[in-house]
């Protein structure tokens, strides 16, 4: 299938869904409107709302807050995950001691931590960053751990035979291998950073996209909720395109593989 046809079909899906939504919420069928606009809003109302937000510029502040929280959560979580993953992989004893606790914390639904973080760090951005970190950390941690563990023994032996010291092995063999695993999970970890930020905002904050959605919901403003969701979706897609571009640059040495949005 060529690009133009694919794009046409992708647009068609959007047109059909929005069209159906519009018809079902606006045009009476057999005398009744099947989806009452009070609960389902209308595409035109949602579009109007988004237009309004951007026209008066009020949405930029919220986007900026969410972006800041996501980036902070991603950077801190990735750094922590990479360092600890590396450390655990090189020191099997440490890994063995902490293993049950890592599993326990990872199994915990992170939402339950949100109130604790709000208590500790207040309603500002840091409680959201903390929630994002708890999500990002484990994704990166597991991938880096695996990456260091699964270095090809032949490549490792080759490094040794070429005269590499432990430090040089670290720099030329373990680290690139771990990074490649980490980058292959970049989409997941960036996504989690945004999830952490938005969920945190939703549960208690004064700004951000999550706050916007939560406020609209509080006054049964369904158009506002949908508008918030639409802006959030666009926000995530833009970030995802950015991640794809970074990924393509960093992983040039890897053969093209089927998508690994692990």
């Amino acid at each position: 299938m060529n690009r133009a046809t694919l794009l046409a079909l992708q647009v068609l899906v959007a047109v059909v869904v929005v069209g159906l939504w519009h018809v079902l919420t606006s045009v009476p069928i057999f005398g009744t409107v099947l989806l009452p606009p009070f609960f389902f809003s209308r595409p035109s109302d949602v579009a109007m709302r988004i237009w309004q937000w951007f026209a008066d510029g009020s949405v930029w502040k919220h986007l900026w807050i969410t972006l800041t929280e996501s980036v902070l959560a991603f950077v801190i979580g990735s750094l922590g995950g990479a360092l600890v993953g590396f450390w655990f992989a090189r020191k099997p004893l440490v890994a063995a001691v902490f293993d049950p606790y890592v599993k326990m914390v990872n199994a915990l639904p992170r939402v339950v931590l949100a109130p604790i973080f709000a208590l500790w760090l207040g309603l500002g951005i840091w409680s959201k960053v903390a929630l994002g970190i708890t999500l990002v950390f484990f994704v990166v941690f597991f991938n880096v751990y695996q990456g260091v563990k699964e270095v090809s023994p032949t490549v490792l032996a080759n490094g040794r035979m070429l005269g590499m010291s432990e430090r040089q092995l670290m720099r030329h063999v373990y680290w690139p291998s771990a990074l490649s695993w980490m980058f292959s999970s970049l989409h997941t970890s960036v996504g989690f950073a945004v999830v952490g930020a938005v969920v945190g905002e939703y549960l208690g904050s004064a700004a951000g996209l999550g706050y916007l959605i939560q406020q609209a919901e509080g006054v049964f403003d369904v158009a506002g909720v949908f508008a918030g969701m639409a802006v959030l979706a666009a926000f995530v897609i833009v970030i995802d395109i950015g991640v794809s571009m970074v990924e393509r640059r960093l992983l040039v040495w890897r053969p093209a593989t089927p998508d690994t949005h692990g």
Partner: protein
Amino acid sequence: MQETAANGAAREAAAGPRGDGLGGEGRGVESGSADRPCAVRLTDLDITFRLADRSTFTAVRNASLALADGEFVAIVGPTGCGKSTLLNASAGLLTPAAGSVEIFGAPLAGLNRQAGYLFQADALFPWKTAVENVAIGLEIAGTRTAEARERAKTWLGRVGLATFADRYPHMLSGGQRKRVALAQVLIRDPKILLMDEPFGPLDAQTRQIMGNLLLDLWSSDRKGVLFVTHDLEEAIALADRVVIMSAGPAARIIGDWTIPLARPRDIAEIKLDKAFHDLHREIWAVLREEVMKGYIQTGGAE
């Protein structure tokens, strides 16, 4: 047995416990002078592995082998006989359970810093380009990056890959990757070359080309080479000496032939030589039995 003094001791040690008469087939070594120590000398080597169920598996028993400096020795044996473990012991990648490994007369402790190792499997760093892969051996030894890259490019030219310097390993064919690996090892100018079925995964034509390339590079400065292979023809075509191992477990060295074919050789042409055929027939008579044993032991899995 007519042997030079340099190899005498090790060979006698090998002949003693062997006692199966096959040692008589060996005709000694002409290369290697009496006053210089052997590049590699393995004496009464036992190599064992601990298995998952805590029992031990003896891969190699009582193996003795001497590689003179500048000599090209091929080790041939059936699959799974422990040929590679002899190589790994010489490299210091594994420690023998018994026996001694001496490199240029000094006992080996830790890794063998004087050896270059060409692996059977892909061992290039996938995240480095061809030229970076070749240069790394110099860079970690402290050569400036620019100079290391220059010399790496020269080496890539020598193995016929001058125009592929910026490709990553996955963009190269199997034969090209082997060439890069060869340059990566040789650029460090190791005193000894250890090669573990390096051309095993390649197709027949590429193997011939690689064999000639190897002989070409080797003839310029004649390092000691231990070359492991399961291909007897390849072994005879390349080596000064061919050593035969029995089927494992507890594999032993059961034969040692000098290959008196003249150098320089062309691998494709030498296989048409009558002397080549005679040697091949003679060695194969011994090897065939072991190959069949090995085949039955592995259940014909390979």
